[in-house]
């Protein structure tokens, strides 16, 4: 592949998404899980912008901008929840959150 094609960016996006998903599935620290979710959101952004670049469109970039804004709001709330959690159960281990399980 001597020419830069959209497949490059899509494969990068897929790899980043899978890495983030592995982080969510395997780690127990809720902070790491939060960072992995951010990683997945960014992978989706790369896919959006990659498609927009391939199709000579601006809608992908517009959508990625909206995704970034929503991710900012989500991160504020997520970090607030993490802080409330660590205050309430003195832990950031997701295995310790058993309120709905027992």
């Amino acid at each position, binding site marked *: *592949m*001597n*020419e*830069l094609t959209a497949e*490059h960016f899509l*494969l*990068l996006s*897929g*790899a*980043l*998404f*899978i*890495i*983030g*998903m*592995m982080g969510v*599935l*395997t*780690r*127990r620290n809720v*902070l*790491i899980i939060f*960072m*992995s979710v951010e990683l997945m959101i*960014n992978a989706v*952004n*790369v896919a959006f*912008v990659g498609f*927009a*670049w*391939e*199709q*000579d*469109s*601006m*809608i992908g*970039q*517009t959508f*990625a*901008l*909206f995704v*970034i*804004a*929503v991710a*900012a*709001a989500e*991160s*504020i*709330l997520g*970090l*607030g929840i*993490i*802080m*409330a959690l*660590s*205050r309430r159960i*003195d*832990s*950031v281990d997701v*295995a310790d959150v058993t309120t709905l399980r027992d």
Partner: protein
Amino acid sequence: MSAEVLVFDILAVLAIISALGVILLRNPVHSAVSLVVTFVNLAGIFVMLRAEFLGVVQVIVYTGAILVLVLFVIMLVDPDELPEFHRGQPLQQAAGFIIGLMLLGELAAAILTRTVVGQPGPWTEDFVQQQGGNVQVLGQFLYSGYVLPIQAIAVILLVGTIGALVLARPDQPTVRPRTRSTGTISLAHPRGAEGEFHPPLPIGAGAAGRAARVERRGEMRGGIIVVTDAESYSDIPAWELEFAEPDVDQKTYAEDGFGIGREGDRS
């Protein structure tokens, strides 16, 4: 191999390595720094994809705001509470890796065998340049066809801010003793002195008022008049007043460098 592909390869490999660092490193602070590296590399990818504004927004919003917040939360959470990576649940981790690899294979197959449908849009590189550049075109999009989503984003950010305040509020509100009001250092409010309360003086004319004022004036320390509270406010500007000689050694404060003086500096 063209230069573009080379640059892309460097950025992509760095991004993937640091993304692996996010999920493999034990220390959450190292993970956060690794995530910063990932985001900066992705900003470079965005610039390669002719999305310059998104690259800048990526750096400002993600590495500038969100990751700093994450670091603050890591700082606030007790480090003894942070669970180890390899503690317990090997089954869950093995399942996670296997499912991830399977999904990666599926994704790669889907990407490599896809066919492009639809027609490309008009926004080629030359056309975007002709319209004034990436930022201008994006601004036209956002404020013509996407006005309602923009306002919805505004509401979402407002709700997020309020929600964060509600979530971060402690269960028991902190009760602070209100014994002493804030000390102020001012050139214009000369009444009062550090640590002692001076009731407001009658602003009288003549020799009696003048004497009272001179007697109960605030301290002057190295050229700065120290006032403790709002009670000692005076409408008379400082440069029209005379001051009592300070009962402190001027040399102590001269050595201080600032003349403000700390608690306990008084000799």
